[in-house]
């Protein structure tokens, strides 16, 4: 099954060290789970780019197919799919997220 959004997603996650596919945008998240990931990234002062899947139905379906993950938000670090809200929250609380960002040489607090 071809994925019309694949080229764009591949470019996004390659060109942006931290890429977040979400509902809404960083200033106006439109879903509690998306807002949680944004607040974690802001708290850690991590520079990140977002894409609003609510504005692009092709992207909304394409991102789920790309990662074999049925929901949004989806966080990518250096092209690698990290997880959705629950995994990112768990990693933040355990310190794993900070370790990962350090390993990937991404500035954070």
């Amino acid at each position: 099954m071809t994925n019309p959004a694949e080229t764009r997603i591949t470019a996004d996650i390659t060109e942006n060290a931290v890429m977040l596919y979400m509902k809404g945008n960083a200033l106006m998240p439109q879903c509690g789970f998306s807002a949680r990931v944004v607040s974690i990234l802001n708290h850690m002062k991590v520079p990140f780019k977002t894409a609003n899947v609510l504005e692009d139905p092709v992207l909304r379906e394409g991102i789920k197919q790309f990662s074999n993950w049925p929901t949004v938000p989806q966080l990518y670090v250096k092209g690698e799919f990290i997880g959705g809200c629950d995994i990112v929250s768990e990693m933040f609380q355990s310190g794993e997220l900070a370790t990962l960002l350090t390993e990937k040489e991404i500035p954070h607090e």
Partner: protein
Amino acid sequence: MAMTAADIEAYIREAFPDAKIQIEDLVGDGEHWSASVESTAFAGRSRVQQHQMVYAAFKGHVGGALHALALQTSAPKT
């Protein structure tokens, strides 16, 4: 149509017969759930893979009838 806790448990139980399962309705609307699942099937798998295995058990319902399912997965401590 929203899902019930029994529906969610049935899907998980079918894919992970040995699982210890705890389900919580996060918002009370039957659409935002959290589930913790402990099963030997997760041993040696990354957290993302474990969650993908659970999502697969729902045969496409997650993101549809089931708006959101926050997961906590683990393998039993040996």
